[in-house]
């Protein structure tokens, strides 16, 4: 999944023109709202959390339960769309 990160390393699914793009497999199949609740700090770079730890990698900055709810709704919408499509095809 191609994502973009801002100056605070927060992830976005679209580029405002000054963001950096990365391919992050961890976000494959994830909803935009889920992705945008994460930070991605590329290898070799660090982001300092409020406690002073220099962090890297992939980690959520929004509440994980909320992100999981976003993802569950996203999956339900996709499944509903697929079911409707299948029903449409079968009716032809």
């Amino acid at each position, binding site marked *: 999944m191609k994502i973009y990160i801002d100056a605070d390393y927060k992830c976005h699914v679209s580029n405002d023109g000054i963001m950096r793009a990365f391919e992050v*497999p*961890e976000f*494959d199949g994830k909803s935009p709202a889920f992705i945008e609740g994460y*930070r991605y700090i590329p*290898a*070799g770079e*660090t*982001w300092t*959390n*409020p*406690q002073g*730890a*220099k*962090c*890297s*990698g*992939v*980690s*959520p*900055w*929004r*509440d*994980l*339960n909320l992100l999981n709810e976003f993802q569950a709704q996203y999956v339900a919408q996709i499944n509903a769309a697929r079911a409707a499509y299948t029903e449409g095809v079968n009716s032809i």
Partner: protein
Amino acid sequence: MSIRGSNFENQHPFASDHALVWERCIPDGLLYGVDMSFTPTLFTIGTGFMLVAGRMFEITAAENISISPGSGYARVYVAIDTGGAATENSFNQVTFGVDYAANLDSFAELTQEAININQGAAVYQAEVAVLSIDNTGATAIERQMELVSPSAGSGAFAAIAVTYPAGSTVTVTDGKITYTSSNTSGAALFIIPYAATWTVTATDGTETATETIEITAENQIVSVTLAYSFYVYNLGDECVDVSGGWVGKALGLNTEFPTGSVPKITKGPTTITATGTAAGSNTSTNGLFYAANKIDLTKVKSIEVKFKGSATAGQSTFRILSGFGTYMVDTAVAGLSPSAANTWFVGNVDTGALTGEFYLGFNVLLANRYIEMEYLKCIC
């Protein structure tokens, strides 16, 4: 309009205005000095500053109060009489007195009029000390006025209850006032005198844990649990009490590497290594090397891990899993890859947004790929 300005431009502030604020905020007590001592017939109040009913005064020469012999108790009190003389050259509004009672709780009620209202004459008395007496005179000080503490009496505004590792010391500070726990039992209650941002810190001399608390409302009570950093693996120590031991599990990574294969674990004196295995010629395998126990990350702000692996992104990766799904990526909520292959790497993963229990581990992709770990530390 009938309003009197006090601390306003061109308005006259009375001493009682100033004292009223102090009276409402600070309990009666000693401000500085005022050592107390006694002989059988004399009670001595040393020089220093006192604050009574918001009125501050200095004792510039020791006060000696005669104590009569008898049976029971003598109470020394200070009396403020705002009807007394108070001129540029003389001051006679503060005096000390003594009265007697058979029991500690049978003294006559002290006069405590509102001396800071209406600028009129009024009397306010406060107990300075109580001595036990016998037929020779004073024998002991039973109780005495304390140094003023903002946390005492009317200074209470809110409270912070702290649970911390036993054996540690806890402090609570807003940068102006610092309170320290009176013991190291593992639980402490701090009375907070006003709204502010308070920092609660526990330390055992080596480890430190801290939390920031916003006190915004009167009678607010906040509970804080402080915990120190802890290891899940450290230099040959599997930290079994926490980790439950480090084990392998067959778990596919994703649809590209769907086949699970249990990694081989080698325990060295200071490191632990997991090596990927594959059934036959299967080239799409993945294994999980992890702490058997789920770890509660609610208080963990970040995880620091030192490891190296045979590959970088996605192939020898530290992962935090919410549970076990069909594939590892189904439940991976955070992760960290080394920046270079076959090179020791120390990294931190921010876990500030994670609450509840999670598995901590690494994925080892394909046969003969490996990860080797030196330590994994949860930082609270």
